[in-house]
Structure formats: structure tokens, C-alpha cells
């Protein structure tokens, strides 16, 4: 069933979910603001924040889109030995291991080019990689729980799982970045 092309019907389909997700994203914002002082003292972390949050959300949304498609095609079983679950879970962690060092190095370089650098490059990379790997594992857990929940409740995973996982990963992205920054910096 596709939504008819009118402003009213598009709004009716989109706005309720959008407002719920907006309220959820404020949790991410409140966490971010609670370490505003640290972020302003170390601009590298401020540059890092949107990229870490965005990449965590993307990892979750890619994984959930893949599982949703496999599920629709009848190719997925919720069994620990399922190849698709295992292969996609390992791929998510490997993607994080590939992308986050580059994100960390990029954030350090941006601050180096635009102003003064207070943090050593390895510190920024360590924050990015540690946050990234923790987030990848959390993204896998959150996606599997959400996908299994949708399956048990007989909901369409495309409608429910992708927005839920993306937003939960956004919130977790800030929380993990906050904790890792305080441990490493």
C-alpha cells in the first residue's frame, strides 16, 4: 500500500513517527550537552562527534536493511548458526574497524588545519576506534533484538526496525563517545 501524493496524506504517514524520533534524539542532544565543556576544550572531539554518531547510525541502518530484506525473502532464521546473521554481524565489526581509524585521523587533521591541536593524533584515533568497535557490537545487538521483536510481533521490519535502530544507535553513539573520551583523554 503506497501513500497517495498529497501533502496531507504524506504528513499523516510521516509526522507521528518523526515526532517520536525527534523526542528520542533529544536524549542524544542532552547527553552531548552534558559534556559540552570537554567538547569545547578539545575541538577534535567536537569535530569527531557528528561523524561518530552518524557512522554508528549508518552501521545500524545498513545491518537492519540487510536483515529486513533477507527476512522478506524468507532467507533468515533466528538461529545462532544462521550464516546471514553471523556474516552480517562480523561484517559490521570489520566495517567499524576500517572506517573509524580514518574518521579519527580525519578529525585530528581538520583541527590541525583549522587551528591549534591540543590532542595527540593517536589519542583522537584511539577515541574513534574504541568508540567505533564498542558501537559496532552494540549496533549488532540492538539490530538483532529489534529484528527479532518485529518478527515476534509480526511487524514489517522495514517500517519499524530501521528507524528504531538508527535512532537508538545515534543516542548510543553520544553516550559511548562520552564514556570513551573520559577514559582516554
Amino acid at each position, binding site marked *: 500500500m503506497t501513500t497517495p501524493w498529497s501533502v496531507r496524506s*504524506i504528513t499523516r504517514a510521516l509526522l507521528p513517527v518523526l515526532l517520536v524520533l525527534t523526542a528520542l534524539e533529544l536524549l542524544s542532544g542532552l547527553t552531548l550537552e552534558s559534556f559540552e565543556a570537554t567538547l569545547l576544550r578539545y575541538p577534535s572531539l567536537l*569535530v569527531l562527534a557528528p561523524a561518530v554518531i552518524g557512522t554508528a547510525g549508518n552501521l545500524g541502518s545498513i545491518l537492519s536493511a540487510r536483515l529486513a530484506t533477507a527476512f522478506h525473502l524468507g532467507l533468515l532464521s533466528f538461529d545462532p548458526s544462521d550464516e546471514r546473521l553471523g556474516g552480517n554481524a562480523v561484517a*559490521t565489526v570489520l*566495517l567499524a574497524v576500517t572506517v573509524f581509524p580514518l574518521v579519527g585521523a580525519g578529525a585530528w587533521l*581538520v583541527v590541525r588545519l583549522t587551528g591549534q591541536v591540543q590532542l595527540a593524533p593517536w589519542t583522537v584515533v584511539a577515541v574513534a576506534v574504541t568508540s567505533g568497535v564498542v558501537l559496532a557490537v552494540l549496533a549488532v545487538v540492538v539490530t538483532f533484538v529489534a529484528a527479532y521483536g518485529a518478527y515476534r510481533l509480526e511487524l514489517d521490519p522495514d517500517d519499524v526496525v530501521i528507524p528504531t535502530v538508527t*535512532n537508538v544507535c545515534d543516542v548510543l553513539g553520544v553516550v559511548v563517545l562520552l564514556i570513551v573520551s573520559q577514559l582516554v583523554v
Partner: protein
Amino acid sequence: MSVRSVLGDTYRGALPTLLVSAVGGLLAGTVLSSMEADLAAVDGLLVLVPAFLAIRGSVYGSLGSRLSSALHQGLVDPVFEPDRRVGVAALAALLNGVCATLFASVLVVVVLPALGRPVAGLDTLVVIALLGGVLSGVALIAVVVTVVFVGFRRGMNPDDLVGPTVTTAGDVFGMLALLAATRVALAVT
């Protein structure tokens, strides 16, 4: 399918998208780090940032996938001429985006004092939400329509283009619009 082939397939398929949107995220972070003075001047602005960026992603991602499905179904032609369907979809995206952003700014004004934290005036945050929502919306409608139409004409599947385009352009234009809107709001309120 073995674990190894699933792994390789997912890894190769997702890596370019992730890298492109990571660059977008770093550019957004660069803009954010140039806003130190604005963040200090407008209490609650940083609380708004993740919601502001996520709204861009949801609303204009939905516009992109709607246009892309319509191209596949032949409901819309990939030509840059006034079209009722494209106009309706773009207007709906803009209105929903602005509406959700206003909702976020009102929530910030209500929630922060309840948590005992300082917050800027409602007028400042509403100007930021309205102006930031409209500026980023106009830019993103142009980007999404262009990428989806041009991609489709070149024989690419617009579904594959929507995700990376919206996350990257959404982060960059979202932050730039937020910066411009904050400067205007600080000047007029």
C-alpha cells in the same frame, strides 16, 4: 550462502556508503567546531544538534525514496520541469521538516529548565528552528531531486543513491543552515 560470502558481500556493498557519509560527518563536525561562540551564546543549541541532523535524514531520505519509487513506477519523469507530484512531495517534506524542528526547539525550552539547566529564550530557538529548517530544506530538496533524477537518467538505481546523498548532504547543509540561522537569530533577538 557461507558466512564468508555474506561477510564479503555486506562489507563491499556498505564500505563506499560509510566512507562518503563519514566525510559528510567530518565536514559537519568542522562547521560545528567553528560554532564555539554560538554554542556558548545560545544555551540549548547543542541539545538541538543531533535532533536537527536526524530530522534532515528522515524527512529528505523519505522524499528521496518516494521520488525514486515514483521514477521506477513511471509516475514521475526525470526532467527538471514543474511537476505536481514532485512539488507536493517536496512541499510535504519541507513542512514536516520545519514542523518537527519547531517541535524539537519547543521541547528543548521545556525540558532543560526542568532538568535545572539554563536555556536560551523561546524566540531565539524558534527563529533558529524555522530559518534553519527552511534553509536546509530548500538546499536538500534541490540536492535530492537533482541526484535522483540525474542518477536515474544515467541508468543508476536511485534507491542506492538516496542513502549516502541524504546522510552526507543532510549533515553538511544541515550544519551550515544551523550556523546561518543561529547568527541571524542572535542578531535579531
